[in-house]
């Protein structure tokens, strides 16, 4: 029991995220008979496949102290590519092509952000537009469609009741990226440049490498997510998928990432995405109109932000107390010496 308590204190944001997830799920499970069923579980995991990727990507970007506003456009471009080329190249090859393109785009963005020392939020406003234009070109301004809608059905096959190849692939990605972030030097570099960029550069870390890695992963996730959506529905629109940015950002924050960077994790990203999914699905079951869903999401985000602000203020006061007690310790040392010196010989 104590171990759990310690863990909660050490990771308040993540604990809060888990608490939220449980609360949201339970609420809907108790108020709606259809919610806690196998079919719903499957539907949630299918949603998770796409939103989870975006949430993961944005979590990484925010941990690195940046953000990728172009993620929606990148995903749309990938969707267009995969749908357009499945007929001629087969689904798997088209998928690989789309993902290579999106990852390369991400890496190039990361490179420029680091090399030119431009803030990501500034650059990705431009690339958001740019990629939309490219997508429009690739789609030749129309909605692209598959000729044979059954070709990509395999990615949605039911596996192990709740999952499908798509969601399993995404879960595997989460695991790989999670291990990468926690157990490799490159993952630590990403945390470092996010939470303490000045100190990180002072310690000799070159921001090029972590920045390129983060945005390449973001591109990869965007591409994979776009492909999944494209293959699932069999169609793709160049200007679509813009909602992914907002949904992913909300999921990231709910999952406990901090806007200041350097804090958060892959597990949190998963929890945050699940919470958003629970909310979404549950509200849809209750026949809530789409705009109300957005409202509830906004409220949820506000709650998380207030909690984060509160815990940050608490940490600050702890730090001040630490500073003052540190001072008190030094004081004792030196006052003793002062008194010894001033004692009459």
């Amino acid at each position, binding site marked *: 029991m104590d171990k759990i308590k310690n863990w909660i204190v050490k990771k308040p944001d993540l604990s809060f995220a888990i608490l939220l997830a449980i609360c949201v799920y339970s609420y809907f499970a108790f108020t709606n008979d259809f919610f806690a069923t196998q079919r719903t579980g499957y539907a949630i995991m299918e949603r998770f496949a796409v939103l989870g990727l975006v949430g993961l990507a944005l979590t990484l970007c925010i941990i690195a102290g940046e953000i990728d506003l172009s993620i929606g456009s990148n995903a749309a471009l990938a969707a267009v590519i995969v749908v357009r080329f499945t007929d001629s190249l087969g689904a798997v090859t088209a998928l690989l092509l789309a993902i290579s393109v999106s990852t390369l785009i991400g890496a190039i963005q990361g490179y420029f952000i680091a090399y030119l020392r431009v803030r990501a939020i500034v650059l990705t406003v431009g690339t958001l537009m740019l990629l939309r234009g490219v997508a429009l070109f690739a789609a030749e301004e129309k909605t692209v469609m598959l000729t044979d809608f059954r070709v990509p059905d395999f990615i949605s096959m039911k596996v192990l009741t709740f999952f499908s190849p798509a969601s399993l692939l995404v879960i595997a990605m989460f695991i790989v990226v999670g291990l990468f972030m926690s157990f490799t030097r490159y993952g630590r570099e990403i945390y470092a440049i996010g939470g303490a960029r000045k*100190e990180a550069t002072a310690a000799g870390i070159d921001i090029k490498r972590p920045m390129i890695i983060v945005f390449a992963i973001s591109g990869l996730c965007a591409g994979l997510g776009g492909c999944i959506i494209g293959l699932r529905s069999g169609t793709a629109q160049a200007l679509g998928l813009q909602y992914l940015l907002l949904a992913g950002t909300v999921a990231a924050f709910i999952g406990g990432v901090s806007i200041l960077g350097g804090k958060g994790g892959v597990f949190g990203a998963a929890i945050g995405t699940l919470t958003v999914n629970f909310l979404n699905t549950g509200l849809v079951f209750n026949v809530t109109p789409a705009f109300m869903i957005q409202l509830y999401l906004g409220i949820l985000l506000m709650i998380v932000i207030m909690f984060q602000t509160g815990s940050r203020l608490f940490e600050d006061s702890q730090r001040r107390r630490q500073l003052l007690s540190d001072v008190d310790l030094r004081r004792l040392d030196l006052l003793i010496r*002062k008194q010894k010196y001033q004692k009459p010989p």
Partner: protein
Amino acid sequence: MTALLELTNISRSFGAIKALKSVDFEINSGEVMGLVGENGAGKSSLVKIISGFDDGYTGSLRLNGVVQRFSSPLKAERSGIAIAQQELSLIPAMTVAENVFISGEKAPIFATKSSLARKAAPFLSEVGLEDVDPFLPVERLSIGEQQLVEVARLLAQEPQVLILDEPTAALGESDSIRILGMVRRLAERGKSIIYVSHRMDEIFKICNRITVLRDGQSQEAKDAKRLDVSSLVELMLGRELAHMFPAHPKIPRGEALLEVHNVWPDGTLEPFNFSVFAGEILGLAGQLGSGSGDILAAIAGAKRSREGRIKYKGESFLPKSPKHAISRGIAYCSDDRKLDGLFLGRPIVENLSAPALSAISKRGLIKHDKERSLALSNASKFTIDTSRLDNEAGVLSGGNQQKVALGKWLAIEPNVILVNEPTRGVDVGARAEIYGKLRELANEGAAVIFASTDIQEITGLADRVISFYRGMQVGELQLTEINPASVLEQITHPFGVDDKQPEPHH
């Protein structure tokens, strides 16, 4: 034997300023070499060259007999030279072990927190942190322990030469002792340490030899055993620069303008008490971390204090914010003009009027002619070139920038002027002008309090000195008592130096 590291005939100029003139420097393996000198003597320039931050010098650098030229700090580190800077480079949220291996060639690619802890253990014990939990985030450690982790990080790259730049500046007694112990152990294991410091007692405790820099020139390294504090001070300070400081007034001082009662700024060890009189220039002497700068910021409302009040103009209060202080006629100029003393991207005119916008505007509208005339008069009072007031403040030289940072306060017609490091990064000519202006302001009835780590500045400018040491207020010197030696003594070893001789090395 040939020295491990040998610098010969090193010269470095920045435009017209000659930072280093034909400097020679050497250090043997297993030796602790003290590097001392006044501010501006060239210590930082020399250290930058050795650690690879600057390769625009002439002269030669030999490491192990081989001529080297480091084009980047990374290259220097690869060759075995590492430097622990004053500014911390630890990632606060990461654990001790993670920080030890956050960068550098020897950092492992795949690692868990535990494996890092294991790998870091020998280096942590080398710096004396064997009892610290390597899984703690470094922000939980005390400043002293953080400093040691910093060194551990450098040691993990296994350097031959370690440069420590003011390592105990922000540390208390026991933490400083730990640092000294670590330095001694490292030297015993064959590492060479360049120890840059102002702390006389520490220099004598652990250094084998001492190199003194003065005005960009070096002298032959002296054996620490054959020197004592006063002879070292003599070597450091050299000749006085005549006529830089205006004469002290002979008139009797006025009443106390501002009284500091038990003001205890965050981060200092005790509450401070003193008064300043109209017409007086009060100097707060103390090294980095002594608290001399903190008390100024606290009086100005720029820094939090645990407790205390100032008595000023009949009121007894503690300013809650700079706005509060400014409204009472208290001007404060911090030691970092780039941080908060100047609006670098804005025109000089705007900089000069910034504290007193209400004075140059009527009903919310700025009167540009009024602003310009105010700027012109204040600029000329501080001898700032008035022909280019519309240029960005960022294009000015250091001396002129400082004049703008100070001069802008004339706009509020202050009664109390607080300045931290009035001439940091300022050339000699501008320094004299700034001193003259401060004297003038005092003569006109204001009270000037300045804090400085520059002993010459303290002795030349102050009518009275209050000294600080490691967060405590330790002494006061009246005009007749002020001289470089007495000031230095109070700020570096007010409680005496241990009589114990430094331990012998090879």
